[in-house]
């Protein structure tokens, strides 16, 4: 028997370390010598902290939302008596839950299963076999061909064919070439790469080494954002372990091939996800993009041919080499092969990390896997691709997740952030939110991006403030076009997408803000008022106590009144008013 506990960032945030302490104590109390294995993230973030019990028959029982006080029952009933504790059980081998049952895990194959700090666990699951096969049995050309057969496309957002990049880097002359792993996951609402790095760092290292062999590089650099301290720590451990086993370093596995990897920490700049900006940052400069060509495959890090791949792309590589490109390509659609990892978040019941075959519909991802919308509200839109992406409305829920179909909607596949929004989300506010982000993150090099995003933000802000003017929508569209055309890099080119898609699908919401000074989702503070219905108010004074600016006045047992002059519209009153009375009204 073995006990496994999820110690990814989400699990730790939810209290997994305390659960582990309690578990160890309980095992000691019963003099039980059972191995506790730490693992990364299985993706069921909505059920963290998670604890698996794997019995001697190999059956897995997963307990969710475990608290320290629950441990005693689990140990006494399940471990000692063999009776799983049904009320905490969220998944078991014999009764898989829908969240996991609908998934196909390739990039996430080891996540939540192995201990990410033990290379032996990775090797036991077939790890580094692909590297061995690649460098002993295959030529670089054969590897590139295998990747071509697999149809793997860049998982960072643009969806560029991976084999093409590798081939270009290989064919460009030079003795010194580099492999760069782009782990600068900057999209707000996306955490795929963090999870892979925290849960299965060796798969990325192995993918990089294979890529190095294929393109003729001997040095790899992982550019990881500093906001991911746990991922960096686990990568450091993994690199040391791989070096000790001669899986990285000089003469790997006794062959002439040498390859080593180092980590560089980003310093918080969204634009550094762009290849040329990333290279500038690696060289210690301000992370500003430059004109392409030359592409990094021609002239990248220190002017040498450089191949840059995203974390998830690289995590797929060992699987493809081990199982063959064809095995990967059988999944997915005509132009988008394999599987894709998504970070499901927002107003969804079962948020977390999911990996699905390309071609599955958004509806299936959100309803079958994600369990639908929180509090039984109505679905309004799903945001794909972060600040570069767009909002897809309910009418297009049957769109398959594949590069071309998503692009047609005006959004982009992006790196995999999928934020679900319900009827209480204001789409103008969402557009403003993303523009606020891109405007702050614009590096300032291109005038259209630097000034255009600022002007667009100002317009959106005034619409949300109730000061929108007729013609604002058209003006937004006009500037959007120019920002897209006049920007060097992906940040500026795609910055208008959230605005354009929300205008395209939710124009009536913009019009309500501008013409009627009304926010249909009741979110824009300037356009709503909170009021207490004197007929319903029982005078319990709860709202008055919770009002941060003390603007609710009244006598107990008599209706209270909100002073509209002082109200900051924080919404505390509506939240604390007992639902049986529901006396606070927003209008």
């Amino acid at each position, binding site marked *: 028997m073995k006990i496994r506990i999820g110690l990814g960032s989400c699990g*730790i*945030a939810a209290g997994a370390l305390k659960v582990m302490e309690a578990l160890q104590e309980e095992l000691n109390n019963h003099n039980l010598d059972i191995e506790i294995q730490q693992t990364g993230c299985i993706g069921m973030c909505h059920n963290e902290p998670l604890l698996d019990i794997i019995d001697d028959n190999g059956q897995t029982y997963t307990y969710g939302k475990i608290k320290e006080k629950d441990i005693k029952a689990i140990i006494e009933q399940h471990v000692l008596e063999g009776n799983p504790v049904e009320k905490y059980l969220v998944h078991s081998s014999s009764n898989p839950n829908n969240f996991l049952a609908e998934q196909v895990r390739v990039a996430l194959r080891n996540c939540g299963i192995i201990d990410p700090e033990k290379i032996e666990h990775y090797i036991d699951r077939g790890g580094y076999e692909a590297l061995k096969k690649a460098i002993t049995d295959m030529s670089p050309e054969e590897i590139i061909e295998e990747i071509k057969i697999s149809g793997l496309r860049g998982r960072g957002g643009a969806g560029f064919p991976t084999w093409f990049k590798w081939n270009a880097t290989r064919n460009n002359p030079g003795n010194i070439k580099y492999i760069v792993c782009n782990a600068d*996951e900057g999209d*707000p609402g996306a955490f795929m790469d963090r999870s892979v790095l925290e849960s299965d760092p060796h798969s990325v290292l192995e993918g990089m080494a294979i890529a190095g062999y294929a393109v003729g590089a001997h040095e790899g650099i992982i550019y990881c954002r500093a906001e991911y301290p746990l991922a960096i720590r686990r990568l450091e451990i993994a690199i040391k372990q791989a070096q000790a086993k001669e899986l990285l370093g000089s003469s790997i596995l006794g062959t002439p091939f040498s390859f080593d990897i180092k980590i560089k920490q980003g310093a918080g700049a969204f634009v550094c996800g762009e290849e040329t900006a990333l290279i500038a940052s690696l060289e210690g400069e301000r992370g500003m993009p430059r004109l392409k060509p030359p592409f990094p495959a021609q002239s990248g890090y220190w002017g040498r041919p450089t191949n840059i791949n995203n974390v998830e792309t690289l995590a797929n590589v060992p699987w493809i080499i081990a199982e063959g490109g064809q095995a990967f390509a059988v999944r997915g659609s005509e132009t988008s092969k394999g599987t894709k990892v998504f970070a499901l978040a927002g107003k969804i019941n079962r948020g977390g990390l999911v990996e699905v075959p390309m071609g599955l519909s958004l509806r299936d991802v959100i309803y079958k896997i994600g369990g639908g919308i929180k509090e039984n509200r109505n679905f309004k839109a799903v945001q794909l691709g972060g600040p570069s992406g767009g909002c897809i409305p309910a009418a297009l829920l049957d769109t398959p997740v594949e590069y071309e179909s998503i692009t047609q909607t005006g959004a982009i596949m992006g790196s995999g952030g999928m934020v679900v929004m319900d009827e209480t989300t204001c789409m103008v506010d969402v557009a403003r939110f993303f523009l606020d982000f891109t405007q702050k993150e614009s590096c300032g090099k291109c005038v259209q991006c630097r000034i255009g995003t600022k002007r667009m933000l100002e317009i959106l802000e005034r619409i949300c403030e109730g000061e929108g003017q007729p013609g604002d929508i058209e003006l937004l569209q006009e500037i959007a076009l120019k920002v897209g055309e006049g920007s060097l890099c992906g940040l500026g080119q795609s910055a208008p997408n959230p605005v354009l898609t929300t205008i395209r699908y939710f124009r009536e919401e913009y019009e309500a803000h501008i013409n009627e000074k009304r926010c249909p989702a009741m979110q824009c503070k300037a356009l709503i008022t909170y009021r207490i219905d004197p007929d319903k108010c029982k005078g319990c004074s709860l709202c008055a106590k919770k009002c941060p*600016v003390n603007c609710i006045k009244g006598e107990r047992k008599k209706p209270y009144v909100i002073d509209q002059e002082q109200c900051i519209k924080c919404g505390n009153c509506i939240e604390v008013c007992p639902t049986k009375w529901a006396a606070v009204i927003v209008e």
Partner: protein
Amino acid sequence: MLCNCQKEKQNQTADSPDLSILDEVLDEYRDQAGSLVTVLQKAQDLYGYLPLTVLRHIAEEMNIKPAQVYGVATFYTQFRLTPVGKHVILLCQGTACHVNGSERIETALCQELKIKPGETTPDKLFTLTNVACLGCCSLAPVMMINGQAYGPLTPDQAVRIIKDLYAREQQASEGGENA
């Protein structure tokens, strides 16, 4: 009108930081091309922020123009040129947090601490900082204090966490005085 670096000079506190604690870092990276970002990160770890004298020292030691060092230090959001409070509250403003009401958390925290995002309380205990995304989207809305993530938050809970922290600080300082 003052240029930015002169303004920074005005913000500078009178105490001059001990530059020698940076020697080890400089010795390690001085000859490594492209390591300016790394050196700045390590310097910030040591000093808590990047005082102007430290930036000048780095420029001199690494043979990089001061303007370039300043340019890099002001480009990345991770770098701070002013000191921060004892507890830095990182309030997540990612998409998932935004749609789940992070703005209400921000309002509540600003009310409680009587500062705006980016500012530090006069007693130097708390700094409130908005961050793009902490990657704990399923716990939205989230804030992180001293590496510990808290979520999903309500405005009330967020304020209570700050109050608890404040109470503990008060206790500690009273305890210190009694002893």
